[in-house]
């Protein structure tokens, strides 16, 4: 906006924006608050908002009873592993598309994106079968590979758009300076693209962390990540508000923090450049 708004108008906007913001955030806030209550306070009638005896008990109970750390570890391995694997596969591909574009580059890129559009449920049983055959069911490696494939199009896409912003002359300079292709990518392109690679990494860790189709359908006990851990609370015996809240808070906190850093990249990563 070129003009400064009047103070009165700004005050009204501030009030409106904060109200809407807090309303939207409220379920998360409420969950976080509840996680510090005792089970009795959590279901008190009328509900208590802030003035209660804060306790960390739920967190330790959740950890003891359900081995939260194991699920967390699975989530970290699967989300991190799939993203890193994806980036290793995607960097060379994105390099090729950004700097050596051919007649079919655009088609390949669009085709890659289109694979992201396939409904997972359409290939559920085949994947199930393949996983059983290969002994991958309920393994972290199996899930890591699947999530890598699920997110590969987005990773390639994002890296491609970041690489496009790097002038080709610099890579040619490296070539003239005697760098081999590997050295060109490792010493020149990658360091220059670090911000872009970091955002890609971040967004895809988030997407993989929250993925809730394959993680629910291809894992049982051993490799289940946090999505499945939380889903297990939907059965009646798990229904303790405070503990549910503690578990939920722990499951979303790391990603909320990462997410706040990556909000700018979100648009780029999820609209495939159709909105700038």
């Amino acid at each position: 906006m070129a003009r400064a708004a009047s103070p009165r108008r700004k005050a009204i906007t501030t009030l409106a924006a904060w109200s809407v913001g807090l309303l939207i955030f409220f379920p998360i806030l409420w969950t976080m608050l509840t996680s510090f209550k005792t089970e009795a306070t959590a279901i008190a009638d009328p509900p208590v908002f802030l003035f209660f005896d804060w306790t960390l008990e739920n967190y330790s109970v959740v950890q003891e009873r359900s081995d939260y750390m194991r699920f967390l570890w699975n989530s970290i391995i699967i989300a991190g592993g799939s993203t890193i694997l994806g980036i290793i596969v995607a960097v060379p591909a994105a390099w090729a598309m950004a700097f050596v574009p051919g007649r079919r580059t655009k088609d390949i890129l669009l085709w890659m994106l289109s694979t992201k559009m396939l409904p997972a449920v359409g290939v559920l049983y085949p994947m199930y079968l393949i996983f059983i055959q290969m002994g991958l069911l309920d393994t972290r490696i199996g899930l890591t590979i699947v999530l890598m494939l699920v997110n590969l199009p987005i990773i390639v896409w994002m890296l491609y758009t970041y690489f496009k912003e790097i002038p080709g002359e610099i890579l040619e300079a490296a070539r003239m300076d005697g760098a081999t292709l590997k050295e060109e990518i490792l010493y020149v392109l990658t360091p220059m693209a670090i911000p872009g690679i970091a955002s890609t990494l971040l967004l895809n860790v988030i997407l993989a962390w929250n993925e809730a189709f394959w993680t629910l359908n291809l894992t049982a006990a051993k490799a289940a990540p946090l999505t499945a851990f939380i889903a297990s609370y939907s059965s009646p015996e798990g229904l303790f508000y405070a503990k549910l809240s503690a578990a939920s808070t722990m499951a979303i906190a790391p990603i909320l923090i990462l997410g706040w850093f990556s909000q700018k990249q979100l648009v780029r990563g999820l609209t495939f450049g159709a909105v700038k």
Partner: protein
Amino acid sequence: MATQHSRSAARIMMAPAVILLLGWMLVPLAMTLLFSFKQYLPLRGGDLGWVGFENYVRFVSSSAFWPSVQATLVIVGGVLAITICFGVLLAMLLDQPFWGQGIVRILVIAPFFVMPTVSALVWKNMFMDPVNGLFAHLWKFFGADPVVWLSEAPLFSIVLIVSWQWLPFATLILLTAIQSLDSEQLEASEMDGAPPLKRFWFIILPHLSRAITVVLLIQTIFLLSIFAEIFVTTQGSFGTRTLTYLIFQRVLESQNVGLGSAGGVYAIILANIVAIFLMRIVGKNLDA
């Protein structure tokens, strides 16, 4: 512009990604296609031979099919309507100058980062529970009878949960689009004497039309395959069985792979129809 050298290098560099995605796309797809033409019951005799298009016919003519199409349409349509309408309003609000813009933005975006199972569970228990949920307390406070949300208004409940998750996405993209609107254009229209409502209708909305289309298409693709929200809340009962969930049940719960695969092929075709439109827009934006 490049040399033969770099072109052949490029092919090699692209190969792993292309081969992986090609395999990921073709192998399971081929298997689904294959199963869809078979009577295939893993727990009741396994592969019982070819049946032609019978699965396709049975999937469509089963009593669960049309209700599932209806549920899918209601959920997708409802969420799209809510997220886009409120997304536009919210984006316009957040585009105004106010104190604490950064923080409010974060508050608004936060739900997008909550994993689907968590948001479904939190809404189901802590808000929609007829005894201890916050909504129940609220209703009682105003002297009304608490609603058993997930059985009395199951589709509305799911639409609400999913909208909460996707509103941030729509808002963020629309906000990005609004910010790219040239403020001089608005000022010019103000000079031309257009009142605020007309400015919105004739300047802002047309400017947003592309972003809205993109949000519409991307969300449609993701919403068509929502799963965890239903899995955690109603397990498909009370008329919330969407097409996706129906296929999931056919395949994994009743272990009728042939029938489920036929459903899967329908789902893939449906998603592709949407995807074609999205790819067109994306393709236009790719500077070739």
